[in-house]
Every structure is written in C-alpha cells, then in structure tokens.
C-alpha cells in the first residue's frame, strides 16, 4: 500500500475506518463520476484484475479470496450460497404411529432439519400440486423404531442404556425405501442422512415410531461468511490513543473478499460455490429469455 495515496485513489479503492464510523463504503466508480477516468464496464479489464486464491480446502469447508470484484456481486454469491442452492430435504412427514412423548409436529420439524446425502443435481423439482411424487423428484425414507424393555438387564440397574432397547432414536435409524428405478440408479445404500448420530427422539418401553418421509428438492442450506481484509482484523484500538489518532489512517481494500464456506455435508464446498454461480447465471438467462419472448409479441 502506498504511503501517501492520492485522495482520488483512496476514494475509489478504500473503505476508511474512523474512530466512530466507517466512511467511503459505497462503490462510486461509475462512468462520469471521476473526470479523466473511463469507468464504463469493460470485461477485459475485469478479467485482468480478477483473481481467486484458495487458502484452504477440506472435505466440508473451504476458504478462498476473491479479489477485483464488486461488493454487489460478491454479496449476490453469498446470498445464493446461504439460501438458494438446492438440496434434498424432508418435506412431508406421514406419521402412521407416534406414541412417543415428542409431539408429531416437533418430530416432523426435527426430521426436516436432518441433512440427507443425495445429490440434488440428479433430481427434479416436484411439480406444483403434485401430491404423490414420482421417482425423479422424491426420495422416500422410513423411520420405524419400537422401544422394548431389556430382559437381560441387571436387577437394580438404573441406566437407561441397560434397561431399554432402542430407547434413543438416531438419524442412523432412518432407512431409504427406493421407489421406481431408484435402486438401480443410486445403488443400495447410497441415500441416507449425512450424519448418523443426530438424536431425533427418546422412547420408553411400549412407545414406537412409524413414520414415512418424502424428501423433495428445495432451497437448501450451507454456511457462508464473507470477511474483508485477509488476516488483519483491522482493530481500531489504535484510535483510542490520542497521540496516534491523527497520525494513523485505517483503510480496507474495497474489492477484496474472503469467503469461508462450510457445507452441511451434502455437497462439497467447491461444488456448492459452482452451483451458486450457476444459479445466478440461470437467473440472468431466465430474464433474457423473458425479454426475448416479450419482444417477439
């Protein structure tokens, strides 16, 4: 960073952090705002300036930097990652028998939150109004657990693990019921909850659960955070010291973003990011098609 950045450069490129506020947040480099600068959109200039640096990548999380892109577009990616990447999740829960102490709706709510390992790209959206669901848009899962007393428990034990059989219902008890040709397409055991050990309910002897669930494709979940300024929390502590206050200027580069993506396990994080970018492209394409259709009329 240059020691003395000209004022204009600073206005264009930096977000300034003052003691009591943040200045210069919005992008101002639009055509006509700065005399002598040509700010109209130039794809080649963008392609030259843009870069992505991957800092780390693991099975379920990754961290990467995007440099040279505007906040509006980076934020669009973040919003799509959080809310608009499709996944398969339990939507309808058919409760045939629930004599446990957990109410039907609470249990259904918990089941809806369990991530299901099924690649959403292999499924279609269910048509509106379709109650039954077909093999291309629905996964059927079953949860059938009955709790019984353990006849072999020691006489005076009070540990539920010894006294009862099946008293904790985990997500590993959810079984996949293939419909149609799903068994051939997906192989025997490949569709199941991502995590085995999510506790769904607790039972006591005589209580049972007999539930069938339908999973459909919908807007799913990941965790995405966007930070700014790599590894520099830009603490404003220095502004508390009066003698330093006027000498130090804290600024952040406006177009450098750190993405930290954590996946729920259904899709790998790099696949999630690619899907998010595809979603944004699909939105644009849909509107372009609408425009073309409107023009033909």
């Amino acid at each position, binding site marked *: 960073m240059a020691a003395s950045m000209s004022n204009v450069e600073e206005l264009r490129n930096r977000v300034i952090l003052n003691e009591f506020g943040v200045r210069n947040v919005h992008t101002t480099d639009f*055509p006509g705002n700065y005399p002598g600068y040509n700010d109209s*959109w130039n794809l080649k200039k963008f392609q030259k300036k843009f870069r992505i640096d991957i800092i780390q*990548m693991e099975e379920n999380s990754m961290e990467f930097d995007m440099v040279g*892109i505007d906040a509006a*577009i980076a*934020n669009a990616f973040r919003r799509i990652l959080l809310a608009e990447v499709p996944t398969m999740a339990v939507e309808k829960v058919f409760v045939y028998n629930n004599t446990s102490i957990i109410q039907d709706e609470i249990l259904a709510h918990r089941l809806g939150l369990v991530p299901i390992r099924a690649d959403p790209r292999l499924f279609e959206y269910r048509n509106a109004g379709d109650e039954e669901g077909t093999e291309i848009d629905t996964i059927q899962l079953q949860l059938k657990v009955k709790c019984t007393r353990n006849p072999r428990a020691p006489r005076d034990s009070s540990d539920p693990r010894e006294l009862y059989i099946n008293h904790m219902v985990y997500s590993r008890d959810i079984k996949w019921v293939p419909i149609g040709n799903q068994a051939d397409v997906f192989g025997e055991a490949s569709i199941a909850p991502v995590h085995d050990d999510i506790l769904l309910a607790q039972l006591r002897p005589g209580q049972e659960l007999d539930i069938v669930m339908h999973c459909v494709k919908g807007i799913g979940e990941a965790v995405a955070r966007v930070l700014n300024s790599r590894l520099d929390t830009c603490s404003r502590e220095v502004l508390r010291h009066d003698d330093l206050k006027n000498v130090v200027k804290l600024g952040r580069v406006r177009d450098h973003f750190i993405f930290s993506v954590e996946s729920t396990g259904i899709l790998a994080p790099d696949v999630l990011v690619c899907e998010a970018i595809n979603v944004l492209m699909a939105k*644009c394409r849909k509107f372009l098609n609408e425009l073309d259709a409107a023009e033909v009329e």
Partner: protein
Amino acid sequence: MIWTCAISLFSVRVAYGLVPACQWKSAVSKCKSVLPPLAECPPPVFSSQVQAEGADEGCITFVLHEEDHTLGNSLRYLVMKNPDIEFCGYSITHPSESKINFRIQTRGGVPAVEPFRKGLNDLTDVCQHVLNTFQARVKDFKGQSEAMD
C-alpha cells in the same frame, strides 16, 4: 412499530445535473403481473412486466418477480457501469412481497431495454469468468495438495 423502508439505491451521476421530465411513478398498482403459483418447493418461476412511462422509451420500470437484493443489486451495479445511463435504481416494494421495481432512465434517446439486456449479458459474462477461474484454481489446488502428499 418499526417502519421498514423499501430499500432503494440511487446512483446519481454527479457530473451531469439534469434530470429528465419523466416522473418516477410506482408501477406496482398498474402492473398486470402474473403471480407464480404457491408451491411447497417452487421451481424458479420468473416473470417480468415492462411498464413504459409515456412516449419516452428511455425510462422504464421493470417489475421483477421472485427477486430480491441478490439479483437487484448486482444488476444495478452492472447497468450503472453503462455510460448511457442517466439513472438506475431498484427498490423492494414491500418486504412481504418478493418482487423488485428496477428503474432505468437513459440519456440520448436510447431505449431502456437495451442497457437492461446489456446488464444481464454482462452479469452472465462475469459469472462465467468467475466460474472458470474458480474451477481452474480448485483443480490447481487439488493437484498441488496431491503432489505434496
């Protein structure tokens, strides 16, 4: 009661002062808009309605359904990068309705549909480039970490 203001971003051109005579009228009440059916998991259903004000094709308000800041802000940024644009902004009419009013006003008699279309194309190009760069970097990174193992 908290007044939730419809968010509108005005990017006014500093160097050129004149605002054309076109009025900013809310297009919401006049729109013959078709609302997409309420499904449990709606597939992305879009519809846009073009409302041209008066005889001047340079000022148009587009009503984009099932959209929010995600597309609105990024599209606004790219449309503003066009030197023909006098005004570009978007607002969310009401937070309970998922639609945005996207307003474009142009200078020099350019029909406003053109910068809108150009903005969409530019956004597609940006996404494509980001996707290509990202995939290339992921491949390099994976290749690198395999080489080190």
